[in-house]
């Protein structure tokens, strides 16, 4: 079995992102970049499936600028066997990324595609579902458990209010939620080994796909700020304020 893990280079989750002074976009100058946390979980799941003897190959793929090779090298150090960069100077939207990934799937024919439920930059939560749609593959989003059962995949999903279990025919698409697993750290020997693993670069223009943007970013602003209130001295005072000033409890 072959597993494809699409992943994304995003600003590190510890970075506090602010708008540029002209509000044209967010300010990412000199910001630390990382693998999107949900994508790390996706890769970890794929590597564990391989380590359990249920897959032969894990391929990491990303769509992005040349610098995204750093994140692919990380993926290789974490256990991916080889990596593919579809290089694009333009930042692509989820619809375009899905079209590009569908092309990669066509070439690689994976049995399972695992990706993060959302990237922490755009917070769109679209790519997995769109890719599944384009390929007419079944989907299980927000996975908290993945079990392979012959030619099917059983997935427990986190839904509002609880958990849902679905069984998908392979090939299938799974998107990961936070609790699926806890990703490992790359060891130094594995980081060294990753440098020798295969990383293929393909220019997006060679794929013959229309990746032109469908939306325009008009402005980026800070959310309305909320002022700090008062510090109360005791529980008694807190309850008094909530009853008589805020009037939110009786």
């Amino acid at each position, binding site marked *: 079995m072959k597993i494809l893990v699409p992943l994304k280079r995003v600003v590190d989750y510890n970075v506090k992102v*602010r708008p540029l002074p002209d509000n044209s976009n967010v300010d990412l100058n000199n910001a630390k970049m990382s693998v999107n946390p949900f994508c790390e979980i996706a890769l970890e799941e794929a590597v564990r499936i391989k380590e359990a003897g249920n897959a032969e190959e894990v391929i990491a793929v990303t769509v992005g600028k040349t610098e995204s090779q750093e994140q692919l090298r990380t993926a290789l150090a974490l256990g991916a066997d080889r990596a593919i960069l579809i290089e694009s100077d333009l930042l692509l939207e989820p619809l375009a990324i899905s079209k590009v990934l569908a092309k990669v799937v066509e070439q690689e024919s994976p049995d399972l595609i695992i990706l993060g439920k959302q990237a922490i930059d755009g917070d769109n939560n679209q790519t997995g579902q769109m890719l599944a749609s384009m390929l007419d593959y079944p989907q299980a989003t927000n996975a908290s458990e993945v079990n392979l059962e012959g030619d099917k995949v059983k997935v427990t999903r986190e839904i*509002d209010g609880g958990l*849902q*279990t679905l069984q998908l025919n392979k090939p299938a698409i799974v998107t990961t939620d936070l609790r699926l697993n806890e990703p490992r750290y790359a060891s130094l020997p594995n980081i060294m080994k990753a440098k020798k693993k295969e990383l293929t670069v393909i220019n997006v223009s060679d794929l013959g796909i229309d990746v032109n943007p469908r939306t325009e970013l008009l402005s980026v602003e800070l*959310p309305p700020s909320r002022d700090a209130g008062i510090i109360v001295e005791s*529980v008694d005072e807190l309850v008094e304020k909530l009853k008589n000033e805020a009037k939110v409890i009786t």
Partner: protein
Amino acid sequence: MSILVIAEHDNSSLKGATLNTVTAATCLNGEVTLLVAGSNISTVLDEAKKISGISNIISCDDELYKNFLAEDLTNLVISIADAYSYILTPATTFGKNLLPRVSAKLDVQQISDIISVESEDTFKRPIYAGSCIATVKSNDSKKLITVRSTAFDAAPMDNTDVSVESIDSVIGTNISEFVGEEIAKSDRPELTAANIVVSGGRGMQSGDNFHLLDSIADKLGAAVGASRAAVDAGFVPNDYQVGQTGKIVAPDLYIAVGISGAIQHLAGMKDSKVIVAINKDEDAPIFQVADYGLVADLFEALPALNAQL
């Protein structure tokens, strides 16, 4: 222009987020149609007919849609999509699962999680865990949109004259199958619908200590939530999680206990009307958004609070 809102329900009643999504739809200029697809949905339809702001209901009652599988619902939505300039769903796990699948079939770049309608093609939405708000213009001829329910009021339920049209189901895809569901049973209100939410963070130290919040929540008729740190630490299940990667809530009163106030958490609760923070670290960022802060050891403050209610 015609607008389609896809209703979220559980085959017996409507989910509240459907009503907020209808309000977002009424911010656009056009006739609003509600699609209700499910199995044995007569009570849902009775409820739906009362929603103010909608003109028509399209119903599809078929066993195939009982569990709302995205694969089959997508094909149903596609079968009627031509007639609409807009298709909206709530930005819940239901809508997030379904709408991108529809968008890809229609070759539309969906706009996720909008918090306001600026014009017929321009919307505001949070990005980077709510650190920034983007204003986005869609140039697609059809707009597919998920709606953050806390940003729009619920549509009133005072309509009396909505026609219902039944449509045929679309043949099943048979590529995925529903196995089972575990919906957390609780006498307390659902997190996203509660007027009061009491949440615990890493400061709670263990799952057992959440009983300190439970008894307060019971007295206040509140829901119990948690920060991602508390969920990651295994104190409580993930469906407690409030934050950008969990649930977005905006109750009248939000009580944050032992929560430092990471941006990720604030993104999920900072639109609450009144915020209370109880934390022993006076420098915790949560105090910067709290209306009432109490610097105290939660293991002393919670029993005292419980006794006062």
